[in-house]
């Protein structure tokens, strides 16, 4: 079978966040990692590959040229092919335009299964996977915690807040992966060597390679949502802070405040 996994290079949120003057993210200025949920999705795909010989795993990313790094990482983990979709006209895309772009790339590929992470740690929207499924007219199963292949079908554990559903869907379909789906697949030294060798199968696509997508649906121009403003979070103001000499004094202070506010 053939599996396409969408991955995203994201800024490591610990590294600080930078903006361009137009309010969009300045990704070039931040440290970058493979988005954790996407990595879990890739690991699930590689596990299916291990259990089903002949399976081919292709990773696709949309991003800046430096997103090549996460593709090499995916290859070193065991993916077979990698595609980088990069073009100036794709920049500033919201989830609508991003899903158009990725769907336009995936239309060029053969697939039984498309896997994306549930959400990326930068935007936290969880929208791109479901929107790709709509563009490709595929059944969608999001919040997947477990995937089993059963002939032409997949059986997926779909998590909700207070329950899960066991769902059966005929392939092709799209699944969004929870971090729990991860299987701890690691890069191997040989894998890393191969991933950076000339024989590594990394293809770069631009706007012209996207299939059945109009310009009106791409990049900042094709994004229905627009940023009105973006800023660092402003914490609410600090109140009082006391350093009492004894626990008794501390408790008197708290009890006094609770009484003053009619809590007790």
């Amino acid at each position, binding site marked *: 079978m053939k599996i396409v996994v969408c991955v995203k290079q994201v800024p490591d*949120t610990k590294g600080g*966040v930078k*903006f361009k003057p137009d309010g969009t993210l300045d990704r070039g200025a931040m440290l970058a990692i493979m988005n954790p949920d996407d990595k879990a999705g890739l690991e699930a795909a590689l596990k299916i590959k291990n259990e089903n010989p002949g399976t081919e795993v292709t990773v696709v990313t949309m991003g800046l040229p430096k997103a090549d790094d996460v593709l090499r990482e995916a290859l070193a983990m065991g993916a077979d092919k990698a595609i980088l979709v990069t073009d100036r006209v794709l920049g500033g895309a*919201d989830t*609508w335009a991003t899903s158009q772009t990725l769907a336009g790339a995936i239309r060029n590929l053969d697939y039984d299964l498309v896997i994306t992470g549930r959400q990326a740690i930068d*935007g*936290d929207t*969880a*929208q*791109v*996977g*479901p*929107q790709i*499924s*709509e563009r490709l007219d595929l*059944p*969608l199963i*999001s*919040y997947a915690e477990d995937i089993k292949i059963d002939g032409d079908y997949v*059986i997926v554990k779909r998590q*909700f*807040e*207070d*329950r*899960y*559903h*066991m769902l*059966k*869907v*005929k392939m092709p379909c799209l699944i969004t992966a929870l971090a729990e789906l991860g299987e701890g697949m690691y890069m191997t030294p040989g894998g890393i060597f191969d991933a950076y060798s000339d024989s590594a199968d990394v293809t770069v696509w631009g706007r012209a390679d996207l299939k059945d997508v109009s310009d009106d649906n791409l990049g900042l121009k094709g*994004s*229905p*949502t*627009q*940023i*009105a*403003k*973006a*800023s*660092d*979070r402003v*914490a*609410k103001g*600090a109140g*009082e*802070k*006391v*350093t*009492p000499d004894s*626990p008794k004094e*501390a*408790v*008197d202070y*708290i*009890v006094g*405040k*609770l009484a003053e*506010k009619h*809590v*007790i």
Partner: protein
Amino acid sequence: MSLKVEECKGVFIFAQQVDNKVNNIAYELLGKAKDLASDLGQEVTAVLIGSDVKNLADSLAQYGADRVILVDDPELKEYRTEPYAHALASVIEQYKPEIMLIGATAIGRDLGPRVAARIHTGLTADCTQLDIGDFPLTPAPGQEQKKNQLLMTRPAFGGNTIATIACPNFRPQMATVRPGVMQKREPDKSAKANIEECKLDFTPNNKYAEILEVVKQVSNVADIAAAKILVSGGRGVGSPENFKILEDLAEAIGGTVSCSRAVVDSGWKPKEMQVGQTGKTVRPHVYFAIGISGAIQHVAGMEESDIIIAINKDESAPIFDVADYGVVGDLNQIVPELTKQIKEAMAAKA
């Protein structure tokens, strides 16, 4: 095909129900929708989707729905992406709302993006604030400023940043909204729903998933989002056993115990008890932050609490930047004594 901006009117909410029970988020959305509709001089419509759920319509009216659009079909018994997306997208195409709000739940975050893609409009995820205003906020010379737009504010980057988004050229303006953030109204118990039934065809196709099994995970953990008083512990509590002193305090003051992500990550407490960007958003009357350093992602989930009381031995802990009352000291000494005094105060009052 997208809807024409000038044709669209009304504030709609998706009234999520599961097992024939309305989810709290529907009432929270109605509370916010009422404010937005009043700013726009429009009405609030709840979209109720399910099987045999007509009986739920009155409660939606009681919390502020001027009208309930009902899509009722046996195929809608359990939540499944495709029939629900078909139902909501069809209602939107037929009734043309100006604003469509959906809860940012495990259902809403599946349904919302699929529907937004189908009807060609933008969707802003996981909003914590919604206002009516002008876009752009400050137009460039010669640039048109559109009035009465939905301004959708949301945190991103694990709560490190906050962005306000608009969707000026497409309708409806769609947002998923974080549970626990918007306030529901006092219900008007006498209200009866004005119901419009919307009949649609639900012929299964390849996109209809087959549900093999529904497994409910019964939780014996109290719902922290509903608590009026939360006694929340962090890594500073030291051990799972030591949460006992927080439980005693919670019991004395009539509160519920919650915790930070560090506590869940250490396996001391279940995920349902976690407050923060990756846990639950809470806004209790009183929030005790005990042994919690106050990482941004935690603060994002509790800073709307009315009164925040922090106890931490590290005087430079960032939690003191948001606490109304901060006490630098040893929680192991302070908390048991606090429990004792609160018990005495309560007994004296009784």
